[in-house]
């Protein structure tokens, strides 16, 4: 007897048993389970907690209030993040970009280090790293614990429940909302999380749209733009509320784009009906506050920050080199910026921003430092040479970008949109390739959001120009 004989026997028996075999097996399991459970469990009639859970669920998953609470909750999280990180961010900037930077240059001068070396190490590597730390650390140290507390409490599955109808209407799997939420931390993690979706079609939709969840690397860009351009244009009392609103708006636009793209995919390339699934709403559990603070600061914040630093340091060197090695009449970075400037301006951005997005393919975290360094050096500014980057707080950043970079409100808004709509970082792309084993889908996942980004920013720029706003 061989293996194929066993299979033949199995097939024969299967045919004899008929189609309800699976159901009968399940029935046998369920019957046994319910019998055993019945004999082992008794209750004493006090079900107070359950009613509390139920009441809370009724509010949090209500068709109208559920969404209102959701909006408020996320607005609250971002408002706390933005207001809370203002002070520590500027303190860190003051320290790292001001004093330490100055001290390092003094040290280099004392050691009479050659200008190219101190330039490369201090103006390049150190500056980029210090920037990433001072811009990213405070918001992440606030955002992660808050988000983890919500997660620990059991709120995330309720969000998935609320969004389920929307995803079903878009022809996608309801669990996609859970994978998108993972994406708000890191898109690569979100892509791996799509394993909870059984249907390959819906899983692929979830993978291709995960990029529309704004990841850690992109929050700092949004928060900074929201703070210095949008928050600053509102009355001071409302500044952080306006900034938080703008950030939440971009995040919500991201969710809407994910839904729209899912809908489009399920009507064209990935046709099919959404599959039925059950989502368990776990009990609410009192969050373990201290433990959460510890793990989210140590494990998430520091790990993400470390990754950003590892990316920022070599990127800083690259930026410094490209903007200091000259070919002909301009530096390499200058040539690149000049080449991309017409396209950038057409999109309401500029050449520097596009170059920054090319440099930042490995990690989105370094977008802002790259933009600032290029703006300062290419602007031929007295500031950069005089080292006025010393105290580049929000106000100075605003000055640099508007006066030296020629930025307007449109540039800021389009940068926020482009930050949402562009190719995923290289780590995410690699993960997508590993999960799909398909070059074609990996390519689609890179080009689709990029095409969307170009289209959307072109439209906003054109409209703004038509109406004379920019």
């Amino acid at each position, binding site marked *: *007897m*061989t*293996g*194929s*004989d*066993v*299979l033949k026997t*199995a097939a024969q*028996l*299967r045919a*004899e*048993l008929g189609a309800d*075999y*699976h159901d*009968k*097996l399940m029935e*046998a399991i369920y019957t*046994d*389970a*319910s019998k*055993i*459970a019945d*004999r*082992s*469990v008794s*209750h*004493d009639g*006090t*079900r*107070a*907690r*359950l009613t509390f859970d139920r009441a809370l669920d009724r509010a949090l998953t209500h068709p109208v209030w559920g969404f209102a609470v959701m909006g408020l909750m996320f607005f609250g999280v971002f408002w706390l993040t933005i207001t809370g990180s203002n002070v520590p961010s500027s303190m860190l900037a003051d320290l790292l970009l001001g004093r330490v930077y100055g001290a390092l240059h003094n040290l280099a001068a004392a050691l009479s280090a050659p200008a190219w070396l101190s330039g490369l190490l201090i103006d390049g590597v150190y500056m980029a790293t210090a920037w990433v730390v001072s811009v990213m650390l405070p918001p992440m140290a606030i955002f992660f614990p808050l988000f983890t507390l919500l997660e*620990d*409490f*059991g709120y*995330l*599955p309720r969000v*998935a429940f609320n969004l389920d109808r929307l995803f079903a209407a878009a022809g996608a799997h309801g*669990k996609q909302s*859970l994978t998108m939420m993972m994406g708000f931390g890191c898109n690569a993690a979100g892509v*791996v999380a799509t*394993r*909870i*979706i*059984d249907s*390959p079609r819906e899983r*692929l939709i979830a993978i291709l749209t995960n990029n529309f969840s704004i990841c850690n690397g992109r929050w700092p860009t949004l928060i900074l733009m929201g703070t210095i351009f949008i928050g600053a244009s509102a009355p001071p009392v409302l500044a952080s509320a306006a900034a938080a609103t703008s950030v939440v708006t971009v995040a919500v636009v991201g969710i809407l784009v994910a839904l729209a793209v899912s809908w489009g995919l399920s009507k064209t390339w*990935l046709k099919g009906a959404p599959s039925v699934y059950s*989502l*368990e709403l*776990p009990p609410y*559990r009192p969050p*373990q506050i201290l433990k959460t603070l510890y*793990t989210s600061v140590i*494990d998430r914040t520091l790990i993400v920050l470390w990754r950003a630093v590892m990316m920022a340091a070599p990127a800083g060197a690259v930026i410094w080199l490209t903007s200091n090695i000259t070919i002909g009449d301009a530096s390499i970075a200058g040539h690149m910026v000049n080449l991309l400037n017409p396209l950038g301006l057409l999109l309401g951005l500029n050449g520097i921003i596009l170059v920054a997005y090319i440099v930042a393919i490995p990690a989105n975290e370094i977008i802002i430092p790259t933009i600032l360094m290029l703006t300062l050096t290419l602007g031929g500014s007295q500031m950069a040479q005089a080292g006025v980057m010393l105290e580049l707080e929000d106000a100075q950043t605003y000055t640099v970008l508007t006066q030296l970079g020629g930025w307007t409100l449109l540039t800021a808004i389009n940068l926020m949109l482009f930050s949402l709509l562009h190719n995923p970082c290289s780590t995410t792309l690699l993960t997508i390739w*590993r*999960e799909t*084993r*398909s070059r074609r*889908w990996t390519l689609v996942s890179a080009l689709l959001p990029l095409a969307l980004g170009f289209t959307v920013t072109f439209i906003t720029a054109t409209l703004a120009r038509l109406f004379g706003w920019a």
Partner: protein
Amino acid sequence: MSVVVTGACETCPAYHSAALKKLGLNVENFDYVVALAGNPNTGKSTVFNALTGLRQHVGNWPGKTVARAEGGFAYEGKNYKLVDLPGTYSLLSTSTDEEIARDFILFGQPSVTVVVVDATRLERNLNLALQILEITDRVVVALNLMDEARRHGLKVDDRHLARELGVPVVPMAARRGQGIPELLDAVAQVAAGRFVTRPHRIHQRDARLEQAVENLVAALNQEFPGLPNARWVALRLLDGDASIEQAVRDRTLGDLTRGQSVLPAPVSDRIPLEVAS
């Protein structure tokens, strides 16, 4: 041979838990492999962290762990490799996370499988526990979230449950660290074979079905003598499980009889996603 009088202290599991050494990611030279299975959101990762000292991300939502996580611990002089499996409701369907769990319990041949069950939702959790008991005899049931059950006014009789299932049942509140010493003790006993389980088998009420299973088990035993989970393999073949059919065809199933671990490559490397366009 001298008579050893064991005092109350030595028989108390808490006494032994001092012997727990959390080895973190160090899983070299292990004596036993322990798998952690269970429904989603029952606290598998919490138990994993408590035993290994690692800090796998823990979240209150189903589906958080989608890949296997591995860690190690040492207890009473033996080294254990602990594998945290994705949470699943059943082992009978075919999503990727369920396949990871199923393949590991079947092909990875863990020395002990700890099934973490939610005491507040016992019936639904038992559905999975019973399926696991069909695959492997070496099971310990961790009856977790006992604190929540108490808050909900539920009383779960763990001793009765242990009798019904034929395997050790350890009441726990892993979030508070309660029950960890007892769990370690039960795992060590089952791993070393000091506790011989007599697992519950699913009762087939349909004589025709039972007959078919027996026929197929006979055929399997002839082809793969000593196959430890012939009955479960038969059940799956009758259901037309493609990956089990594949294991029969390429004879990897035969390796199970020789006690080899034939775990396929990590799942992340072999997820096919061929979607027709």
